[in-house]
């Protein structure tokens, strides 16, 4: 049985956003209608970075609004895309005249609404570019008509790296190119030990037998295509890491940013243990862990699980990764 601290399922998202904005008054401000979050002190004379998507993935995206990362985030209902009008309004609020970069995880609704918003903004004379984040290796197919790989934790790297470049004055085309480069060098695999439950619902969205894990799970409570044997991290983590290395074609001597991401209710103790195993796999393959981020950044409500993301790193990307950032969820 799952229960949550909520008033009612419909009010969860706006009430959380009100609390979030009250908790970070110097970082962000929240427009309730249409709903979006912008920096408390809007940036001037830079390309605006705007991202968004369904709620239930916090701290993504609202937690990444602030200097060095996003200018605005647009939260939809739980696991549902924000509307085009929300995105348009957020983009207009964030735009300082140099155009808007939309960072969009690859889900039909998100893509549709961000593309529509781009058309609406074009009509108002605002230039936008679109970086599609599609890092989830579990949904890789050859079918060109399929929706393609889902977007998951690599979005944090895209927002961080492009956010830093935007702060340094990169223009819209440069940023779009940079974002696409980060995406092209990023793949993720996720494993769930237990599904999360929607606010107000007592049952998790799927049940797993004690000896299996959901292998290649997404972040919206849907089942994965595959179940594999449960086991110690020393057995599970190599199965998550090796295919990512292979998909990226990483070779001895290359460096990566490692993101070990908790999917909601997985404890830091576990995540750091997982990170240790990822490092072992990388070391054995001669790949350097240039940077890392370990924690719950792209969640799926209270799902028990984690994802491993590798981001191919070069000096430019690392330099941008290291650049200062001041947001509710990420500050250095």
């Amino acid at each position, binding site marked *: 049985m799952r229960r949550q601290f909520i008033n009612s399922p419909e009010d969860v998202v706006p009430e959380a956003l009100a609390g979030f904005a009250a908790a970070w008054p110097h970082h962000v401000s929240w427009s309730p209608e*249409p709903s979006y979050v912008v920096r408390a002190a809007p940036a001037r004379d830079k390309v605006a970075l705007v991202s968004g998507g369904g709620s239930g993935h916090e701290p993504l995206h609202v937690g990444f609004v602030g200097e060095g990362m996003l200018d605005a985030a647009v939260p939809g209902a739980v696991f549902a895309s924000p509307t*085009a*009008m929300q995105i*348009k309004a957020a983009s207009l609020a964030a735009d300082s005249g140099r155009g808007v970069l939309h960072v969009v995880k690859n889900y039909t609704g998100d893509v*549709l609404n961000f593309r*529509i918003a781009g058309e609406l903004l074009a009509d108002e004379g605002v230039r936008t570019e679109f970086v599609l984040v599609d890092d989830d290796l579990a949904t890789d197919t050859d079918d060109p008509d399929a929706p393609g790989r889902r977007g998951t934790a690599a979005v944090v790297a895209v927002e961080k790296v492009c956010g830093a470049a935007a702060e340094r004055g990169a223009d819209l085309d440069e940023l779009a190119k940079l974002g696409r480069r980060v995406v092209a060098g990023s793949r993720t695999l996720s494993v769930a030990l237990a599904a999360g439950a929607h606010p107000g619902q007592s049952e998790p969205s799927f049940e797993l037998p004690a000896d299996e894990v959901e292998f290649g799970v997404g972040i919206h409570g849907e089942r994965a295509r595959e179940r594999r044997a449960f086991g110690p991290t020393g057995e599970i983590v190599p199965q998550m890491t090796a295919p990512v290395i292979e998909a990226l074609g990483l070779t001895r001597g290359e460096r990566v940013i490692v993101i070990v991401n908790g999917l909601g209710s997985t404890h830091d103790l576990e995540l750091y243990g997982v990170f240790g195993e990822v490092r072992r796999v990388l070391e054995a393959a001669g790949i350097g862990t240039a940077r890392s981020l370990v924690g719950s950044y792209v969640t799926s409500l209270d799902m028990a699980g984690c994802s491993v993301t590798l981001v191919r790193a070069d000096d430019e990307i690392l330099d941008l990764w290291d650049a200062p950032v001041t947001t509710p969820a990420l500050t250095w």
Partner: protein
Amino acid sequence: MADQLSPVLADRWVRGFAAAVEDAGDRLTEMDRRSGDGDFGVNMTTGLRRALADLPDHPSSPGAPFQVLSDTFLSHSGGTSGPLFGMWFRDFAKVGAQVDFLTLGAVAEASQKGWATITRLGSAKVGDRTMVDAIAPATEALQRSEQEADSLEAGLRAAAEAAERGAEDTSQILGRKGRTSYVGEAALGVPDPGAVTIGLFYRAALDAVAGASS
């Protein structure tokens, strides 16, 4: 018989459409349940109810009621259909904003633009089991009527019938776009709710014009 759609008739068209969708709500949702995820009715009625409340008492142009529909759908409607219909209405709003009356030619133009928009955004082709399977024949019917210098009423009747036939035919099609592509054969026998809704849209136009003439 009105051969042009005044702002008042455009308003009547939009209100008639909203009423028709409201009436058909459960049936549409049931279609989406069989072929997708069952939220179609809610996605449509959420937008329509809000839009009705916001419709201007004295529309300044025949585009104005569509502008309200479009804005409301793009602001408040979820799913795939919500934003797509929002953009569909937007092309009617744009064409209607520039004229005092919508002629058959203007309706054909709006329909053509809307079809292009939906295709640009959703990349569905005819035969993919989407609203495009009603939009395409309806648009072609409007264009044919215009070329043949038919009356507005005749053109809208042709469009409505073409859309309804197109929608009906989707019940025999295997889905290739959107959520219905995941359910495959299970959807056979039920028409696509988006396509059915396009039928309701042109039927409401016809009723607005025909009602004005009687």
